């Protein structure tokens, strides 16, 4: 077990380094970041001065090591637009994204599991087929389109809910529901097929045969085994959730990291873009690691060599 954790940790290091390398070169793909920052009309002198001050005249390896050293110390550089350290700007926006993400996760998981179990227990009935159709439609609707439709209906047409910004719980409803839909559809699909698999297992038949009420069979016997794999699926969706947050936060003017990233990209604020991509990707990678390791406690049937 310990050996497994160590090996898994060691496997994560190259991927993390790779991410640092990719984000480092991301900015240099254009050729000259200094000219990009200053725009087309900049004088040659200004470009040279900025190149000097950004250290762009040093050898690439020196630049990379400096970047890597900064990242390890938590120094991601200074935002071009805000003229403030990037990390602080990023950190300010974490609570908003966390709030939205957790709300969406809770919504997607609770609704997804309930509907998935229901659908599996009513296998091949009209309700089951309807749910499967809705799931397919749910996976085909782009988040931004769903968000805009929600704004048209709930905000413009019925004037029920606020359509932008953050503050009251009412502000959270539309963005969280929009972000949750894709994930919920996935969870329904997965839960349904897992429960269908487990339904045929001998221990479920035994539990039924000894006269346990259906509720107990479902919660104590069925769900416990059906849902362990769901944890990996959910963890694997973290990067999808971040992608969704980028779009959803933009549509609903939610002041989180996703919207911040889009603004950074449209204003070509490269230190900001670098930091956002780097941090979010590392979070995903570390979460995957955590889930892989946590798995062994959840499912005693799995052993690691």
């Amino acid at each position: 077990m310990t050996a497994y954790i160590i090996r898994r940790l060691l496997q994560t290091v190259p991927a993390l380094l790779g991410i640092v390398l990719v984000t480092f070169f991301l900015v240099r793909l254009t050729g000259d970041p200094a000219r990009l920052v200053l725009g087309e009309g900049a004088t040659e002198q200004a470009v040279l001065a900025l190149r000097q001050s950004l250290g762009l005249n040093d050898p690439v390896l020196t630049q990379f090591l400096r970047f890597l050293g900064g990242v390890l110390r938590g120094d991601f550089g200074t935002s071009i637009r805000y003229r403030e350290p990037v990390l602080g700007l990023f950190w300010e926006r974490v609570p908003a994204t966390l709030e939205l993400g957790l709300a969406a996760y809770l919504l997607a998981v609770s609704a997804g599991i309930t509907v998935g179990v229901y659908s599996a227990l009513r296998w091949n009935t009209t309700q089951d087929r309807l749910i499967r159709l809705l799931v397919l439609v749910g996976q085909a609707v782009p988040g931004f389109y769903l968000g805009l439709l929600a704004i048209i209906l709930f905000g413009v047409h019925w004037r029920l809910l606020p359509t932008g910004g953050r503050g009251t719980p009412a502000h959270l409803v539309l963005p969280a529901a929009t972000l949750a839909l894709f994930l919920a559809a996935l969870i329904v699909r997965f839960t349904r097929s897992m429960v269908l698999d487990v339904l045929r297992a001998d221990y479920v038949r035994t539990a039924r045969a000894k006269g346990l009420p259906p509720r107990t069979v479902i919660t104590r016997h069925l769900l416990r085994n059906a849902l362990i794999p769901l944890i990996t699926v959910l963890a694997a969706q973290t990067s999808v959730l971040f992608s969704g947050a980028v779009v959803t936060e933009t549509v609903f003017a939610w002041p989180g990291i996703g919207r911040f990233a889009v603004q950074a990209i449209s204003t070509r604020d490269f230190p900001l873009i670098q930091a956002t991509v780097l941090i979010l990707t590392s979070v995903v990678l570390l979460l995957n690691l955590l889930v892989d390791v946590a798995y062994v406690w959840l499912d005693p049937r799995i052993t690691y060599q």
Partner: protein
Amino acid sequence: MSGQPEATETALRGAGTAVPVWGDRLGRRGRLFLRSGENRVLLALLAALLLLCAVPVARLPANPIRVNVALRFETPSWGTASGAHVLGTDFLGRDVLSRIVYAARYTLFISGIATVLATASGTLAGLLAGYYGGGTDAAIMRAVDMMMAFPVILLVLALVAVLGPSLFNVIFVLALSAWAAYARVIRSAVLSLREMDFVEAARAMGARDTRILWHHLLPGLVSPIVVISTFQLARFILTESAISFLGLGVAPPMATWGGMIGDGRNYLYEAWWVTAFPGAAIVGTVLIFNFLGDAMRDAFDPFTIGRR
């Protein structure tokens, strides 16, 4: 947007039992696929969609790119006597229906070519990782781990912003964002295939690695590849729409559905139709490909019939 992990798992289940003959097996599966009426309807819809893409710009109801501000925000005329603009006009007075048909070719071209590129590169990476193992495998799989951790939209947005939103760059960046998913699936399929007797036999006969990869392993992987690619195409349509919506898609006069929604977004109060109809086109098209993927998976993998 990645998803449908079971799609790949069950697609794989068929791979281990594959008989490696190029054309024959695919033909039999094709006939099985066509036996279902639903599937024939799906194929007809797909054909209709592709035909729409082939309509010459001059034959569209109106010029999709000519600006005429006098016609700004005409309401959709369906159901009314005048049939000028069935789905209304946008903020520059362009006919929404014509633009939806015009944008279809760009949306599908971008997603289609990106799928081809992602399939080719991801399959190659997966074949090499699975077949050679060892250091090759480790190197490729660490790169895959890294790629899978990037939030797709963020990566694509950042790369397109850096490289510039040309048609080629958008396609290239999309393909780059998706090859890793293929590599992972193909690798695990190869891991089981390469232990089969026919591979051993081929090697005993003195076949070179390239021959084994191309003639013995790849044919057995065709059905999972076709199934994954169909879902991937749908996913590319969604991703491309998202980046176009956020203003980083291909530039005018090229048009995409996501870009149309981005245009309409600022006028939700006055003109809902500019946003609503292109979105419906996205949902419909993605549904066609997702249904096709499901249907092919069922046809190619007898274990799943009636299950999903």
